[in-house]
């Protein structure tokens, strides 16, 4: 009788320890995903911050490109309205965020393409520096997105794997969305037969 009680208590203690460590693991995993997300937002914000200066610089040399300049400004103001709640990193909210930011990328691409036609602009020191900052920011975006996806993948695996998935559903830990690779998926691995 006493033995049985001891065994029951021991089993319950083991389960409690498992639940506590499992729960804490989920919490820190989610925290990592959130930290990675805030880095993603930082680098996108960095790109947004470069735009006013860039537009002003280009305007001085290429007055005839109003349409392109306006599309950059419009895409920027649209993107600033879309923010993602770090507690709701779902597939949909990330896709929406990515789409709005993707428009900025496309508009900036067009702006840099037309700047090729203006030698004076290309030789402008300020413009050259902005271009370097912009190129660096694009690489930062790619890097932070990759890091976010890696941490989300690690976390999602934790949430889905048995038996921790029981804990995850009990305490409402849901899976996080990923960044889809953009149109230029040339870097994605291709397997051919």
């Amino acid at each position, binding site marked *: 009788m006493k033995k049985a009680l001891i065994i029951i208590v021991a089993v319950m203690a083991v389960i409690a320890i498992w639940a506590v460590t499992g729960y804490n693991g989920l919490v820190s995993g989610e925290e990592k995903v959130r930290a990675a997300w805030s880095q993603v937002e930082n680098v996108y914000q960095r790109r947004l911050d470069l735009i006013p200066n860039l537009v002003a610089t280009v305007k001085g040399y290429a007055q005839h490109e109003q349409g392109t300049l306006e599309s950059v400004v419009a895409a920027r103001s649209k993107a600033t309205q879309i923010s993602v709640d770090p507690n709701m990193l779902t597939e949909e909210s990330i896709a929406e965020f990515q789409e709005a930011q993707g428009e900025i990328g496309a508009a900036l691409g067009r702006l840099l393409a037309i700047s090729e036609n203006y030698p004076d602009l290309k030789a402008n020191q300020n413009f050259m520096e902005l271009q370097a*900052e912009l190129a*660096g*920011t694009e*690489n930062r*975006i*790619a*890097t932070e997105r990759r890091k976010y996806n890696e941490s989300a993948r690690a976390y999602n695996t934790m949430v889905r794997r048995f038996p921790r998935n029981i804990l995850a559903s009990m305490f409402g830990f849901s899976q996080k969305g990923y960044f889809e690779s953009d149109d230029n998926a*040339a*870097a*994605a691995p291709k397997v051919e037969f």
Partner: protein
Amino acid sequence: MRKFLKFIAAAVSVLMPATLAAIPERPYPPRLVNDFAGIFSPVQKNTLERRLSAFADSTSNQITVVTVTDLEGSSAAEYGTEIGIRWGVGSGKFDNGIVVLVKPKTAGTDGEANISVGYGLEGAIPDSYAKRIIENEMIPAFRSGDYYTGVDKACTVLMKLASGEISEYGGSPGEDMLIVLFTILFIIILVAILSKNKGGGKNNGNRGGGRKRIIDDDFTRGLIIGSLLNSGSGNCGRNSGNGYGGGFGGFGGGDFGGGGASGRW
């Protein structure tokens, strides 16, 4: 069977973490100059390695130079950043690593150069500075085929910029020599005092005093042996660090966020 293989391939490509092209393995023993493309002479490699590892020792900023013949389909910026992250260039505390990447020009392809800057040095080396270093220091020399001069000049500027931001003294050989000298001086003085005391003890008839002195002697002997052991072990540690071409102890786990610049010629 084919269908099955295709399924496996699809499954693998989905499951595979979104890592980039196969970058080279982290060098072992650790080196700062990794000339996979073979564009430096052995003398140039050694000179640069010594320079970079002395800089890493004195400021804790790690600059690594990597040359490759192929970027495996990714951009130079992605490739450089990936090396920085996976090798852990820079210290984990400061994230103060820099990767200088060169893909030499060949008959069919453009040459490409990239400077990737760790999180901690983004303030000291903004992208536009990195761009200017590539355009002004590296590419003009690279155009004439002188890769060493271009990389060397770039490193000079990078060192100047980086040491302005983070300059954590890592203990230099100069400081080491001073410690050794002091230890030797200390031993000489101790031995001198000891032998004088011994001489005095012999002349002194008082037993109690003599005994006391013996204890003192043991104490001083212990001190001497202790300090000898101490300096000995210090030298050992230093030597093992110095074993490979100039004392680079290994990458410290620094992280990169994609800052820096690249250029092509």
